[in-house]
């Protein structure tokens, strides 16, 4: 390939990879004001969803929501492309509720490509990156496989599972980044040459079957929410037609087929060597690990509106294709299912994320940023979240601005990146809400309150969108103030309501706030019973948030106190060139761990696994003495 002249002059930012991380990175950099190139192996594969046809879920949905709050695209694009929307955990508290959308894959890709194409400072180019150009430990550009060079002031690598990717089905192993696409092996070698340490992970996907070949009468229908909510705070809520998903279960027959053919499973043959995710085991693994379970769920999800393909969530496997078909057909409702694409496992290189700064910049290679699966994560949401942070920082670097990072108490994105750079990964990293110690603060409903002011400062959120957030916030403030003073009289209507939700009646006037702090008491019915005209004056989102803030207030205060307590540790900065190896009072193991991660603050140091409280006090002592080395 010959590089077009228009590209040879170079860019501020070059993003390698057009997946979920690459798209967010490129959009963020371009929107902040940098000339940005998105380099992808195939323009047909922009924002491809190679695994499940869904965005969001518990933990992941919060990430998508935060991406939206930061002015990213994943949320908006999902709202344009979904075929089913569902709020999860509605039976539990609002802090752990999250949206999940089934998407039409093709629609999602097309919509994202349209957004990229419309972005003024963003250019798209098809080509294979083969290496990075480095000059004096600083990135100078990207080399393509034909030897041509694209100069760049910052580079974001977001090449997913392509680094020395190998696909495994049964006994077969062949090089590929995704099914049908060549891997990127030269880039792996090149990164190693520049001293980037790589590890190896594995991930797998289930077979897809033809919708005409299954019997949905034997399954449970999942229609999605009757009045769907949306990911984006900004896009006008367009209602889309909901397409149902289905649920069936494997049975003993399925398990027997699997057991009969286990000797062909890569688990047993050893043809897959990378570490796979525990939260997403193959059906082979589930049958081995949980021999007492007589069934495992199989969620059947349409891959789109213009295809017959159905994704068999729960039947992930890389058994030989002929065995896959037997397994599928042993399962109720799938007796005559025809496989359209087989399941497979993919093994790939990732860069150990402890080599990164919290900005996602490689610590020892200035201006090189890594985002997405290359950092050992899994999932579209985790990838996009890193993409936007890498894109923002690449752009800010070009503009000579301060780095942009999020703290653990600010965002799931902060938790994600802090975990990656501080603790490293020993399996593909997926977000769970239980990873966030401040879960009650990091909610789906308040993502914009937490992050949009920052996005506005950074230049990713325009005034008009930001104005919407500001209005929402001030309306919330008004409502909270009003609830704090509004006195609810002990009328029969009020007491009837209170008793109906298992709460005790009141005998004298009480503020609405106080009543709302009781479990099970909700704002709307209380306001109605008390004759407060709140429903007319405040939109549902604001009313809901007010209710949540009050319900959790005691816990929120506790978490804030905890954050306050720890903030001192977070604010003690460790100098970049601090020599951990010189502190002989630390054990060799601890010195080693600290030198590897090179934490930026005492707070970060304290989260490195294996670093003890004693290490931290020693370290603090040294820092207070201004490092004697």
């Amino acid at each position, binding site marked *: 390939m010959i590089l077009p002249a228009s590209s040879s002059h170079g860019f501020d930012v070059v993003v390698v990879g057009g997946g979920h991380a690459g798209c967010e990175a490129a959009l963020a950099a371009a929107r902040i004001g940098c000339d940005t190139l998105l380099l992808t192996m195939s323009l047909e594969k922009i924002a491809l969803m190679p695994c499940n046809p869904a965005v969001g879920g518990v933990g992941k949905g919060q990430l998508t929501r935060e991406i939206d709050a930061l002015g990213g695209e994943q949320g908006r694009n999902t709202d344009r492309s979904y075929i089913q929307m569902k709020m999860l955990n509605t039976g539990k508290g609002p802090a*752990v509720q999250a949206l999940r959308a089934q998407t039409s894959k093709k629609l999602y890709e097309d919509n994202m490509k349209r957004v990229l194409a419309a972005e003024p400072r963003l250019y798209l180019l098809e080509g294979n990156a083969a290496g990075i150009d480095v000059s004096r430990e600083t990135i100078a550009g990207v080399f393509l496989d034909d030897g041509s060079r694209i100069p760049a002031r910052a580079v974001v690598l977001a090449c997913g599972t392509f680094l020395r990717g190998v696909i495994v089905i049964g006994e077969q192993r062949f090089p590929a980044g995704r099914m049908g696409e060549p891997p990127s092996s030269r880039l792996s070698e090149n990164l190693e040459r520049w001293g980037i340490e790589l590890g190896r992970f594995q991930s797998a996907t289930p077979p897809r079957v033809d919708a005409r070949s299954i019997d949905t009468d034997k399954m449970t229908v999942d229609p999605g929410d009757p009045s769907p909510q949306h990911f984006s705070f900004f896009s006008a809520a367009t209602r889309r037609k909901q397409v149902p998903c289905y649920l069936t279960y494997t049975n003993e027959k399925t398990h027997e087929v699997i057991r009969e053919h286990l000797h062909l499973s890569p688990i047993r043959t050893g043809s897959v060597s990378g570490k796979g995710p*525990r*939260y997403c*085991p193959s059906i082979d693994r589930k049958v081995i690990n949980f021999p007492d379970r007589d069934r495992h769920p199989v969620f059947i999800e349409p891959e789109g509106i213009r295809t017959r393909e159905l994704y068999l969530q*729960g039947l992930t496997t890389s058994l030989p294709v002929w065995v896959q078909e037997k397994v599928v057909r042993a399962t109720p409702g799938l007796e005559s299912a025809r496989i359209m694409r087989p399941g497979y496992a993919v093994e790939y290189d990732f860069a150990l994320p402890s080599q990164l700064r919290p900005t996602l910049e490689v610590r020892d290679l200035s201006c090189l940023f890594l985002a997405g699966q290359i950092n050992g994560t899994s999932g579209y949401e985790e990838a996009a979240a890193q993409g936007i942070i890498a894109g923002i920082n690449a752009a800010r670097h070009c503009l000579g601005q301060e780095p942009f990072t999020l703290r653990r108490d600010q965002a799931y994105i902060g938790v994600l990146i802090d975990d990656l750079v501080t603790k490293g990964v020993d399996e593909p990293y997926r977000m769970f809400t239980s*990873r966030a110690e401040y879960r009650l603060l990091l909610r789906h409903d308040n993502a914009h309150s937490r992050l949009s002011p920052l996005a506005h400062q950074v230049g990713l959120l325009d005034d008009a969108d930001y104005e919407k957030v500001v209005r929402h916030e001030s309306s919330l403030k008004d409502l909270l103030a009003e609830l704090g003073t509004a006195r609810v009289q002990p009328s029969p209507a009020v007491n009837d309501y209170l008793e109906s939700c298992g709460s005790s009646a009141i005998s004298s006037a009480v503020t609405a706030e106080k009543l709302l702090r009781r479990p099970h008491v909700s704002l709307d019915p209380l306001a109605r019973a008390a004759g407060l005209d709140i429903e007319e004056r405040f939109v549902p989102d604001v009313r809901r948030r007010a209710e949540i803030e009050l319900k959790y207030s005691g816990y929120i205060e506790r978490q804030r106190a905890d954050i306050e307590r720890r903030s001192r540790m977070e604010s003690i900065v460790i100098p970049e060139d601090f020599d951990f190896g010189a502190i002989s009072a630390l054990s060799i193991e601890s010195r080693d761990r600290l030198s590897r991660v090179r934490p930026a603050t005492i707070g970060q140091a304290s989260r490195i696994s294996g670093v003890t409280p*004693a290490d931290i006090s*020693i370290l603090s002592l040294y820092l207070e003495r201004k490092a004697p080395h």
Partner: protein
Amino acid sequence: MRANETIAAISTPFGAGAIGIVRMTGPRALDICHRLFRPAGGGDLADAPSHTLHYGHIVDPATGESVDEVLVAVMRAPATYTREDIAEINCHGGPVAQRKILSLLLDEGAVLASPGEFTRRAFVNGRIDLVQAESVAQVVSARTEAGLRVAMAQLEGSLSREIAAVRRSLLGVLASLEAGIDFADEDIDDVDRDDAGKRLQEQAGRLRELIDSAFVGRVLSEGVRTAIVGKPNVGKSSLLNALLMRERAIVTEMPGTTRDTIEEIINIEGVPLRLIDTAGLRNSEDAAERAGIDRSRRAIREADLVLCLFDGSEREDDHDRALINTVPAERTIFVVNKSDLFRGRRPSFNLGLLPAEPVLVSALTRQGLSELKGLIAGRVLGGEIPAPASPVVTHERHKRLLEEALAAVERTLQGLRVGLGDEILAEEVRAAIVSLGEITGEEVVEDLLDTIFRQFCIGK
């Protein structure tokens, strides 16, 4: 930080046994010892293999005279308590010889170890964990043999094990809650609240037991805080001296080992009593009077056990009556002194005023003293010190963290009763696990995920 220095200290628990140990650790430990040691069989200490014992004398280089006959243990890094070179000098002599040896070591360039510094090095060098480190501090301060046994058992990790078991069980409950939250769209049943409640109750019980054991632990390692109260001239000092006469175990003067003040410890049938406000008692009766009733009020408030003393040879007065109303009957033993003055006759003091049967003693003739001691032992620990087979909390920090954990478990149980959401319950259980983790030095998330993936078949 003095990691490169060689530190030395007398490391025998004060007053325990005939052999004293002066211990030294650091890069120059063997070298310094070599300079002062004259081996009986010749040879060079600096070349001695690790973990060998050498017989000989410590010699004062200034005079050339032997200070004491000793056994020197040579232990080379890294297979030592501190992971540094260690020389242990086992000497015969009492405190004087030990101090002399220590001062010779300091003259040769060793630095006096600050309290707990050996242990801190062991901890910092990764030799022992946090609980172990803290129980070593207890060994250092253990005043009686029973106290030592507790500390040793703790060293071996029985407390760690018990806490780990509680933590594991709480992690199981948290995993059920979290799995239901994080894998809501999978085939995971919501947590069984009855079952969770039962498990939490059990763990609350275990935590309570541990917290209760802190009293025993403190008694064993610090002694029963005991106040002797009474108006002037009833014989408080005499009683103290009578009790001390034979039973006097240790008068600590070890600077900085555990506390700053000089305290009296009396060992009564294996129960160590730590006398509060002994300064007031010892100095003079006047001092106690000067400080007035406030002072004894404070002593009474802080005491585990109050010995309330009256003069049996005199009629009671308003001071006595006020005192009877002040002391907490359940923690008090009433003692009527000077029985030698009314031997065989009714005391002038009206015994009917006392809410419990008093012990009649004579501090002077020691009459009734053994009865009093039996009563003290019985009152404190049912007459005997429990063998520390079960884990005992001996550290204040552990107790506080266990109390925090218990409070969080109780809030969870309360939350279950009023039907709070899983995410709130999880918050509380997690707080309990975090508190326990601060004792054992473990964090939550990875252990939690391990537990979830072991307990539940996750995976779409």
